């Protein structure tokens, strides 16, 4: 059975007119699939390849380069929470914040909370250094995060 719904396929096909060839739609397609299914399985890779008229290995080659995309063995939670570990955040407690949040959820970076809600990750510079330490929830940056504010953030997800 197909893993990509007709709706997802339509969303992927809607990207075609933006580019002179279909290969350029690999990244947009991977984003759409992962946003919706919370991982990109080998079967999804095959189906994306078919839509884009590529070989599955070409799609997988691109996907595997970006650690951002996860396969079926690394199913993402409902939300991804990233804590920045690069220089400006490190200097202002980013790593301690990561530890605090991991302990709170009883996970290591890269793992998902038992209730399947939150995948905790570390990130390299999130580009929000004026608000270090910074936490990215999905793709929204939250700045100047103290352990207390982090607890609040996690509670509201």
């Amino acid at each position, binding site marked *: 059975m197909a893993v990509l719904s007709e709706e997802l396929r339509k969303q992927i096909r809607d990207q075609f007119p*933006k*580019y*002179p*060839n279909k*290969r*350029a*739609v*690999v*990244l*947009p397609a*991977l*984003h759409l699939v992962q946003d919706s299914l919370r991982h990109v399985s080998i079967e999804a890779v095959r189906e994306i390849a078919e839509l*884009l008229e590529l070989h599955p290995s070409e799609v997988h*080659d*691109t996907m*595997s*380069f*970006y*650690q*951002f*995309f996860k396969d079926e063995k690394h199913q993402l939670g409902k939300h991804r929470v*990233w804590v920045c*570990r*690069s*220089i*400006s955040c*490190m*200097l*202002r407690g980013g*790593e*301690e914040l*990561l*530890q605090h949040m*991991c302990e709170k959820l009883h996970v*290591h*970076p*890269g793992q998902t909370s038992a209730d399947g809600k939150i995948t905790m990750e*570390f*990130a*390299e*510079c*999130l*580009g*929000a*250094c*004026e*608000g*270090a330490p910074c936490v*990215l929830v*999905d*793709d*929204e*940056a939250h700045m100047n995060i103290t352990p207390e504010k982090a607890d609040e953030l996690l509670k509201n997800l």
Partner: protein
Amino acid sequence: MAEFQPVLLARIGKPDSQLLETYRRDGGYEGFKKALGVAPVDVITLVKDSGLRGRGGAGFPTGLKWTFLPKDHPGPIYLAINADESEPATFNNRILMEEDPHQVLEGIAISCYAIKSKTAYIYLRYEYGRSYRALQKAVDECYAAGIFGKNIFGSGFELDVVLHRGAAAYICGEETGLIESLEGKRAWPRIKPPFPAIEGLFRKPTIVNNIETMACVKNILDKGGEWFKSLGIPPDPSNPRDAGSYGPKLYCISGHVNKPGCVELPMGITARQLIDEHGGGVWKGRTAKAVVPGGISMGFMSASELDTPLDFNGPGKVGCLGLGTAAITVIDDQTSMVDVLFNCARFFSHESCGQCTPCREGTAWMHKILARIRMGEGQLRDLDLLNEVAGSMGIIPGTTICGLSDGAAWPIKNAIKKFRPEFEEYITTGKKTVKPAEALMAAH
């Protein structure tokens, strides 16, 4: 001198600064209209004569880059906007995109007209969700208002602007890595030549420009090249290769200061002025031990080098790689440079794309050696080993395709040269400063 009034940041923080309506009320898209009234080559000449150099890090003269496109090319020609701002400590482009997206889009429209491109792709790092939504809304407004699309303002010029989101990889900020990624491939930088202006995106002539550069182009159209050239620092007569550092610049201030933020100033301000006059001073009443002048790739300035002007020429005079992104990170006197350098090395080993062996292996080994030192198992000769690895990777020694590894090597070389006694003391006294969080990440 009268206090400098921000231009690029003039609209930041005003109510509804993102909206087309307020932007046009502030004179928005008049510069684009002005450009459409003259020949594309005149726009190129204006930008060239203004002295504008690219704001992304390398400082290449923007107008000159545009002239590298083949003459009378039948097209398509592409403009690829590098909005993959990922250099640690850099966030100026994010502020422009989030708060004043139309300023950026107008610069893009003007640049496309100048280089005869009908399509601009904005390659935006995934983490900038707020920028993505602000830009997409602004793009939609432009299509609805006839600023993008066919026959713009009755000129016959047409333009499409497409947002393309990245997937959290630093290497996509390298212009040919960006192009490969946009084409749907792994972001492995290309061997140059051919340079993108000859053969770039989809194998067509392509100009890759930075977001802040686009905002500068917009303001050069509004205020003129003379205005731009009246700000900043003229070329250093003792350096025949210096093209001058003109115009306003966005400086980011982060790390151990009281008031981190982004400020706009004429080029050539010093790190000390940035810290004391704009960053509220070093936090907790401490002093600065070191400052990163423009993203960690540029290396470190020591406390005695803080009066160096941050123009394109200045940081190089004190052994840094260059001005980079003009994003300073302040490191206070209580912080171990070993820890700071480890953080830099870890970043580059994580972000090396793996294409060139000296970079893939070199960044990994520098990371491992520094990790060993921080576990109290370092030896003095490790410092020379680090220098040897750093000295053999990059475009400068000629062993890699792109400059990522030059940027990875530079902080190593700078730190060991400028802070060697601190490293030696750390090793000989058997210090250990590994934090529990790092063990967690290592297990990942």
